[in-house]
Structure formats: structure tokens, C-alpha cells
């Protein structure tokens, strides 16, 4: 083929890329990026099948989605929801979303876990980590060990609760695997579906907490799971919904509007699975 002929063929190929598509072969396809505007990175799965994904293996800051691993390590360790946890000054000083715990306060571990998962409370999260492992650093080591055991190749934790840090990373696909591991625990499912929770300290002080998940009670079948936001991570979400026995799990990292995108993606996924309205 001469050079002019090759150039013509390249031009033809490029022009076809902008034309209407021919019929595609029917086969089981890997997930595709159908919705590039949904989030910087996302993955949507129905049951075991990934439907759509974008940049799903790229390590990104996971923000408070980290707390899914926190919960997993706590609940599969030496866990007693009635155990009394003493809030350290360090925990009480935690920044970001907080329950408002006071140093020295004694709170049942179960209440603290609810605060961490339902309301994303960082002070409750650190208090639990310190109680379980003696220090946050020791607890984070357990989190990384569990990540390795789960095969989360793009994930590394630097802290227990999801604060921005250069070495604190996870991918959307890793977070999907983490979510499935956490959802296998009934207590995670129960807490994730709560629209509110109450924390009661010894002495009687109660703190009312509202869920950070705007999908609960607003999207049919929504049952969880966790929201997250930091300046570096952007708006993040792991959402779970179930209709007629079909479960959809999605992960959004750095979404322009995680609630509209999450709700619309759940609806679209159920339609794809034959359960949409």
C-alpha cells in the first residue's frame, strides 16, 4: 500500500469513529464507561456482575468510605458492643465530621460504631480504633493487613477514619470488594440502613445522630452504605439497594453530585437487571 493510500485509510478509520455504530457482537462484555459525567471514578455492579465502570482501578482518596474497613476489622475482631470505651483526648480532638464526644467520656462500643457508620463521626471512629488495638497506628496496621488479605491491590490506609493523606488511597473496584465484605456482616447492614442513631454515654448524656446517606428513605430499596467527603476526595459514596431480590452496589469517587448520580445510577442498574419502573 502506498503512503497516500495509508493516509486515506487512516482518515477513513477516524471518520468512522464519529459515525453511527454498526451492530455490536453479542457476548459478555467487561464493564464500560457509559456515564463519564457521573464521577471521576466509579463502578456499578448488579449481583456479581459489573455493569459500568470508569477508571475503577485508579488509587484515589477514599475519604470516610475508609470506615467500611474500620467496621470490618472491628466486627471480625474481639468485638463486644457492650464494651465500655473511654474516649481519649486525642479522639475527642478529631476534626471533620464529629459526634461531639468529650475526653474521658465512657460510651458503649456499639453506640460508637453506629456513630461512625451512620453519622461518619471521626471522634467515635478513633475512640474505637484505640480501644481495639491500643493505638490508631496499630489499628491501621490491621486494616492494611485485612486489605491485603482481601486482595485490595490499589488500597493502602494511613489512618482509621479517612482523612486526606498522600499514602491513604483506594480504588473504586477495591472499595466495591470491601463493601461486599462488609455487607456480609449483619451488623453493618443493620447500621447502614438506619436513618438515625443515638449515642448514650455513661452518666446519661445522649447524642442524637442523623445518617449522612441522603438516599435512605428517598430511593426505593436503598439500604446503605456509606458517604464520604474530603477536599482531596471530593464527594464519595458507596450505595446499596435491593429490589425483588436483586442487589445493586455502586461506588462513586469524586462525583459532581453524588446523590443525583447515585440515585439515577441505581435506577438505571435496576432497569438493566429488569427490575426498573
Amino acid at each position: 500500500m502506498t503512503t497516500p493510500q495509508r493516509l486515506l485509510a487512516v482518515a477513513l478509520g477516524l471518520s468512522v469513529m464519529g459515525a453511527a455504530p454498526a451492530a455490536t457482537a453479542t457476548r459478555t462484555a467487561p464493564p464500560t464507561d457509559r456515564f463519564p459525567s457521573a464521577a471521576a471514578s466509579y463502578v456499578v455492579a448488579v449481583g456479581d456482575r459489573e455493569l459500568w465502570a470508569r477508571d475503577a482501578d485508579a488509587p484515589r482518596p477514599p475519604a470516610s468510605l475508609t470506615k467500611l474497613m474500620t467496621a470490618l476489622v472491628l466486627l471480625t475482631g474481639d468485638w463486644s458492643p457492650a464494651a465500655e470505651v473511654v474516649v481519649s483526648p486525642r479522639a475527642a480532638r478529631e476534626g471533620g465530621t464529629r459526634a461531639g464526644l468529650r475526653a474521658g467520656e465512657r460510651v458503649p462500643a456499639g453506640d460508637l460504631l453506629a456513630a461512625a457508620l451512620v453519622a461518619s463521626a471521626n471522634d467515635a471512629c478513633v475512640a474505637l480504633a484505640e480501644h481495639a488495638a491500643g493505638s490508631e497506628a496499630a489499628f491501621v496496621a490491621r486494616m492494611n493487613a485485612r486489605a491485603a488479605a482481601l486482595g485490595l491491590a490499589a488500597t493502602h490506609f494511613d489512618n482509621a477514619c479517612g482523612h486526606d493523606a498522600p499514602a491513604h488511597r483506594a480504588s473504586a473496584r477495591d472499595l466495591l470488594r470491601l463493601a461486599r465484605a462488609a455487607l456480609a456482616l449483619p451488623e453493618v447492614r443493620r447500621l447502614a440502613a438506619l436513618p438515625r442513631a443515638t449515642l448514650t454515654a455513661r452518666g446519661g448524656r445522649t447524642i442524637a445522630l442523623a445518617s449522612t446517606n441522603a438516599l435512605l428513605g428517598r430511593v426505593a430499596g436503598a439500604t446503605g452504605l456509606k458517604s464520604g467527603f474530603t477536599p482531596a476526595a471530593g464527594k464519595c459514596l458507596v450505595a446499596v439497594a435491593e429490589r425483588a431480590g436483586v442487589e445493586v452496589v455502586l461506588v462513586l469517587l469524586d462525583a459532581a453530585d453524588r446523590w443525583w448520580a447515585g440515585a439515577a445510577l441505581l435506577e438505571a442498574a435496576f432497569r438493566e437487571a429488569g427490575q426498573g419502573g
Partner: protein
Amino acid sequence: MFRTVRTATLALAALLAPAFAAAETEPGEEWEQTTQMEMKGMPFAMPATTWKFCKPLGDFSEPPQARKDGDCKTTEVKRTGNTMKWKVVCTGQEKMEGEGEMTWSGQSYTGKMDMHMAQGDMSMKMSGKRLGKACDAAKLKRDVAALQKRAEEQHQMSTAMICQGAVDQMTPSTFTGDPPLCKDAVKKDEFCARARSGKGYQILKARQDGISLESAVKLCKLDVAKLEAGLCAAALADKDVNFLGPNCPAESKVLAKAECAGKSFSGVNAHYREFCTKYAADELVKEGAKQKGKDAAVEQGKKLLKGVLGF
């Protein structure tokens, strides 16, 4: 089948009641009859039934079915001594014809009837004996009339339920079958009025079998385009999100602009939340379809280049 046997039994019961002039009471005496019915071709006979009846005093002066009752008429009655033969023809919905004969003495009788119906032939053997107890010979006639009346009422009730069910469930085939299960013109009008309403029209359309809506269009002479335009305009005015979403794309866009666009997810009015979510999903799916088109075009282009450039 059961209906056929039931009707035949009623007809036979009426036919076998002794003939007499209409009277409130009539002196009679008790007899007992045993009948055994058999449908030709069935592997077993129906169980024998025994029943008592009150016969007017005196001989069997006329055949049991000499009375013209309902749709059945006896003809060609021939009496020879204490034996009688006759023919019977029943018209109406359950057509049948047959012939019968009986022989009696002062204390007993035997007889048989052969009935021919579309569903098959039925034969009946009967035997009766005089019990002698005094009774009211007119009672059977009253009882049969009451039974027939009750059967007719039940039939009417059943038909009414079928007709109402067709209106409630929006099943046009109930009115269009051959023959239609419901012939009630009032119920048909009710069905058509409902088909012209948002709720009824949505049921027809949602069935997605294509037949129900088409059937209703023919039955009720619906102008679908005009009807939809009117229903969608009304749904938008009423903010009927349940109708708008699946049926009215143009009006849905108007409502979405007013109630969904620019609002935070948790800030949407609860009434519109599901509508807005589904609308957002529709828009997302449209975006996805465009992206799918682009992806496929890119793949096609790649293949073309691969073939040409040999990599």
C-alpha cells in the same frame, strides 16, 4: 360439563314431577325414586341418587314430562296399558332431545330416558316405589321453581361479577369474545369511560401485550393520539407524576424543569422525588446510549485501521 349435567338434572326433575293443574296445595302421596345416570364414553356411571317426591293421588294418567316446562316439550306420548313412551325436546342454551318410557303398577314403576346433547349422550334408569305417606303434591313444583330461580340468580350474579371484573381489571376481551362473556351494555360503557381516563388507559398501556390496548381501541373507538394529548395535559395540570413519567415525555420534561432541575437531591419535594429520580435515570440512560454509540464507532474504526495498517 357440570353445567350441562346440572341443567339436564333440573330439566329431568321438572319433567318427572307429576302433571297437575296449578294449585297451591294438592293431596298426594309419597313415592321414592332412584335414578342412575351415565354419560356415554365415561368410564364410570355417576352415583345413583334417591329422592322422594309427592305424586297426586290416582294413577299415572299422563307421562311424567307431559307438562310443558321451560324450554322442554314432550311430544308423541303413547300409552299402552300401564306403559308409556314419549319424546322430549329441550331448546335454549342447553339443547338436548331424548326419549323415555316407563311401566308402572299400583306400588312401583321402572323407566328409562335417553338424552342426546352436543357434549354426548346420557342415559338414565329410574325405579320408583310407593311409600304412601300423605303429602302436598304441589310442593315439588314450587321447589323446582325455587331451584330454577336460584340457579338463574346465581348465573346473573356470576355474570355481573365477570362484567365488573372486566371493568376493574381493564380486560376488553370479556366484551369482545365470541360469544362475549359479558353482554351488559352498561358495563361496556363503563369500561370505555375508564379506558378514556388516565388510570384505565395506563392499565391498558402497561399490560405491554399490545393486544389489550388494540382491543380497547376498537371496542371503544378511541382516538389514541387525541386521548393521550388530553390525558397528558390533565396529568401535568394535576401534577400526576405516576401518569406523566411512563406516558408523557414532553410534559415530563416541563415538570422536571420546574420541580427537579437545580434542586439538591434532598431538597426535592417528596411528591416529586421518585419522578425526579426516574427522570434523572432516563437522562442518564440517554447519555449512556450516546456513549455506547461512540464506543461502538471507536471499535469499528479501530478494526478498520487494524486491517489496513496490519497491526
